[in-house]
């Protein structure tokens, strides 16, 4: 069965307005043992979910513009005052006040470093990365947290300097729009659609 008229969503007047198909129906099949006895059935389905980024939406929007945003606690009475968080936290984990958005693109471009990494051929269903996958956990100077991402060029090593690249052409508006390459990588070596 072909997937036609895949569902899309807009928000109008504070409500989701959906258009197209959000599920597709496929016939089920019996499951039998070697004697031909019925044990069960398959239950196929194809469902499109709707998901809001809420207060994190600016982070994902800005990846498509080549910007890396973090957040900062600006509550002078909080123990975490001036702590910068990436992953982007809408609220400070200590005082729960709304954090201030900060642009750390330039800081990251000066060179973040690999805190740890892993390389695997294994993936789960719906994976879109080429294998082997190279995860890198990236440490930034003066930032309280260590961001997970994936390396698109070269082999990872603890301590290596990396810089962010962004999928600004045909962005997916997901975390996949952010990747990392070793510092000094040339523009021509970047994956299709990515730029510094």
């Amino acid at each position: 069965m072909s997937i036609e008229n895949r569902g899309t969503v807009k928000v109008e007047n504070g409500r989701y307005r959906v258009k197209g198909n959000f599920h597709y129906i496929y016939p089920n099949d019996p499951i039998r043992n070697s004697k031909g006895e019925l044990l069960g059935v398959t239950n196929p389905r194809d469902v499109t979910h709707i998901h809001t980024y809420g207060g994190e939406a600016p982070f994902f929007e800005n990846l498509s513009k080549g910007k890396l945003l973090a957040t900062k606690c600006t509550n002078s009475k909080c123990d975490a005052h001036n702590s910068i968080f990436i992953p982007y936290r809408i609220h400070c984990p200590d005082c729960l006040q709304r954090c201030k958005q900060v642009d750390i693109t330039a800081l990251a471009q000066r060179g973040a470093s690999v805190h740890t990494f892993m390389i695997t051929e294994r993936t789960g269903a719906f994976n879109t990365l080429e294998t082997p996958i190279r995860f890198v956990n990236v440490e930034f100077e003066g930032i309280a947290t260590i961001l997970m991402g994936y390396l698109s060029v070269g082999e990872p090593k603890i301590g290596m300097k990396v810089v962010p690249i962004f999928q600004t052409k045909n962005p997916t508006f997901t975390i996949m729009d952010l990747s990392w390459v070793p510092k000094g990588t040339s523009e021509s070596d970047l994956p299709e659609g990515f730029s510094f």
Partner: protein
Amino acid sequence: MIKFSKQQLKIPQMSKPVYLVTGGMSKFDRAIPEKRTEELVIDAFLEAAEFIKKSPEELKSYIHSCYYGHFADHFGDQLLGEAVIHDRLGLDPLGNVGVKTGGATGGSTIWEAYKAVASGYSDAALAMGWERMDEVPTDEGNHYIASAADKDWETPMGHIYTGYYAVMAQKYWQVFGKEEDSFRRTLAEIAVKNKGYARMNPHAQSPMKITVEDVLNSPVVAHPLRALDCCLMSVGASCVILADEETAYKLTDNPLLIYSAAGSHTLRVADRRNMDIPLLPNETPDQYKDLGKRFPGGDRYPGFTGFLAARMAAYYAYGMAGIVDPNEDLDLVELHDAFTISDIQTYEDIGIRPYGEGRTYVESGECYHTNPLTGKPGKLPANLSGGLIGNMHAVGATGIMQVVEVAQHIWGRWGEMHGDEAKWKLFNRTKPDDWTNLQVKGAKRGLAISHAGVGSHVTATILMHPDHKLERKA
């Protein structure tokens, strides 16, 4: 920097003591297409009833509230599966609730039942856990498991939970393992041990007689972890009945004292912030001052190398049970060996060894039933069930299985429950000719650690024979 308040560090004080009365388990396997989940749950319950020579009806008559551990609704493809199980067990109209804390679901289910009894809400409670991971192929299963990571920040990357774990393994491997071949072999020894112990367990899914070389030659999953370093995906169920003192002694003449506590930490490892190491009773404030010098890169705590949730669960549980040094006060442990390397990390988190020195627990031979270096009983045998690597990881059932296993040692009935020919036949499995009774002789106290994801939830459950109760220190 995370700081804890005095109130947050309070050792829990329950209103009354809680006892473990009985427990049971189903067969565990990668797939059990011939049985519905409720059939497996009833298998576990019937074993628990038979263990104390009660009919199911009589045992049920004591149960007042029910706690159901079932992590993954999407694996089971049944929302409110707890209500289905509750009905099939014939326990309506008792109150019941589902518990979901990832890999720690089993432990958390016991934690909930424990509090229900300790508070006086129920005189006796059922904690039952199960998981059905065979109704999607492995790729889809990996995606489902990866859904337990952050759906926006992690899951889209590979849809592979092992990968989110492996970054921690890599850091520990380099910082504390120093990338040494000897450390890699120590990791492999854990898999050899646990797969080997699974051979003595009729419930176990993956019994294997293997060598260190077999582990080192198995396919790479994510360096340095190989296929035989990793836990199983399983189907099965397990349960325990907890009760207050009066009820417990009505049901059996030999109940065990139980203590249960929990800790947590960030779902995303990325969000971990630096802090001082919270100390356990067998550690000293200056013990870790030179940790970064001895292990360069190891001074960031918990960083990517420690499980703060496990440390906090142990901190609370040790305080509640009067444990000062797990090596001296416990006789066996069942740990959450999701991966060989995380098993070693846990030895440190729960104070079996200091941070940085986890490998010595294996290398000393003290984690074995019989220490291979001395031929004498291991000081603190670990995962004689086969653990998650050899026995099973039917997520909601795992933490409960661990407690049942520990209890059977303290009851002195491990051999009876694992050596029975009829059980091997019932499970369509062959009892090995060299089957060995792994009963820990004279076991009085034991510990089970149930652990979720990259350390988001961890429970510590301590069992103790009432004749060997320890005095609470504070």
